[in-house]
């Protein structure tokens, strides 16, 4: 960790307090001139591709999940070369401390952080509360777009296995816990997309058998910050029924909302093995002959065809 870790009571209770910074901490760091030397880079990552342009934290650069992190042709993330080029262009070097924030309680910011982690970027943190909290506190924003000096970023081959699950991994995972972070309507199969979002691209509605339903936003407080350790334990150990040491897979519709839950399980509660299934419902709900459960019950471990 190349930049001092924030110490406060709320973060100290988490398994990995070094993964979060508060708005106060960031404001103080910026005031102290932290952005000058490339050791700290602040990244904004939003759902809306134009939101950064309407005003952002001074000195923050923008990374768009769709145009920057997704491969343009294959349904996959960019490769090592493209990521190295992106990072360098944003002034990020391999040893840079990266603080990511965004809209909607850091939903897309957590997704960007997860992609940074696929490339093994060591020190990447979330701004607790994200964009909305920064603005609600009346902190400075600007429309000036920084032109950072290029960083030095090596070409790193992505290492997906530890934190990313594919469809076959999920089929092999039955018997171990799954967390479905979509809305209750999507979980039961009443709809295949978020409330108030368009119907999008899934032929079947429902959930992966045995998955517990914990909508992602329940991990966030009113102000967009993560709930404290006790509240998160009530949610995931209590309600979802996880136990310490569990191997967990989280999913949603395309893997963005579940990144927010992945972060909470991995870094705040300290589960060693948590994977995000980014194929999520747009893959599972269209795949031929995968088992699905409809309704509010979790369902039981399916007997798979061919096993």
């Amino acid at each position, binding site marked *: 960790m190349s930049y001092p870790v924030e110490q406060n009571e709320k973060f100290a209770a988490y398994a990995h307090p070094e993964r979060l910074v508060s708005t106060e901490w960031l404001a103080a760091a910026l005031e102290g001139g932290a952005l000058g030397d490339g050791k700290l880079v602040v990244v904004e990552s939003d759902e*809306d591709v134009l939101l950064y*342009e309407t005003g952002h934290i001074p000195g923050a650069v923008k990374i768009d999940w769709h145009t920057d992190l997704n491969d343009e042709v294959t349904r996959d993330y960019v490769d090592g070369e493209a990521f190295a080029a992106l990072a360098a262009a944003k002034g990020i070097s391999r040893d840079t401390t990266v603080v990511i924030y965004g809209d909607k309680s850091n939903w897309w910011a957590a997704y960007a952080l997860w992609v940074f982690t696929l490339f093994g970027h060591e020190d990447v943190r979330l701004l607790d509360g994200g964009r909305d909290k920064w603005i609600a506190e009346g902190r400075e924003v600007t429309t000036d777009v920084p032109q950072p000096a290029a960083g030095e970023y090596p070409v790193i081959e992505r290492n997906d296995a530890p934190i990313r699950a594919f469809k076959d991994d999920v089929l092999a995972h039955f018997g171990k816990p799954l967390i479905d972070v979509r809305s209750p309507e999507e979980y039961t199969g009443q709809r295949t997309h978020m409330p108030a979002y368009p119907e*999008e691209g899934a032929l079947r509605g429902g959930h992966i058998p045995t998955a517990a339903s914990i909508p992602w936003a329940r991990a966030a407080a009113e102000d967009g910050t993560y709930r404290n350790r006790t509240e998160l334990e009530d949610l995931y150990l209590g309600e979802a029924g996880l136990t310490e040491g569990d191997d967990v897979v989280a999913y949603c519709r395309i893997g963005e909302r579940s990144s927010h839950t992945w972060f909470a399980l991995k870094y705040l509660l300290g589960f060693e093995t948590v994977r995000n299934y980014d194929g999520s419902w747009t893959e599972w709900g269209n795949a031929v002959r995968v088992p699905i459960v409809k309704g509010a019950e979790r369902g039981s471990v399916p007997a798979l065809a061919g096993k």
Partner: protein
Amino acid sequence: MPSWRGHIDATGSQTGPDLRKLEVMSTNTLPAALAEIVDDFQALTEPDRLQLLLDFSRGLPALPERLLDHPELLEQVVECQSPLFLTIEQEKTPDGVAYRLYFKAPPEAPTTRGFAGVLHEGLDGLTAAEILAVPDDMPELLGLTRAITPLRMRGMTAMLGRIKRKVAAADRLLS
């Protein structure tokens, strides 16, 4: 052209594999103001197109007082990723009936606002025949398909579709 988007350099270079040239057939069905907007977008590179969309989001007029106090008069376009409400009103003119368009979208949703701004500047004050002649896939002519997710492009198409449906229904009541 309104001053709020006067700073865009419409002579910027125009390259990129996704640039769609207007077919002669489709320009014929676009009202003049909308055709001009489409030309402006197509003359720009992708980053500048996004900047132009942002300018349109800033230029979207606020709702008039009478609608501000009556949210029930507006309809939500649920296909949009962010809350977008709209309504239309008829206005008698010497030539017949013109349609006025009103939109409401939060400032935290600049992409949605931007497209509402495009439709407002391109269609406000036109006749039913002019509005109904706009091709349903007109949003794709703006050249934003690569930069903006398919989900949001669908929201834009839905916004245009809703306007056309409302105008068609209102126009039927006149005859």
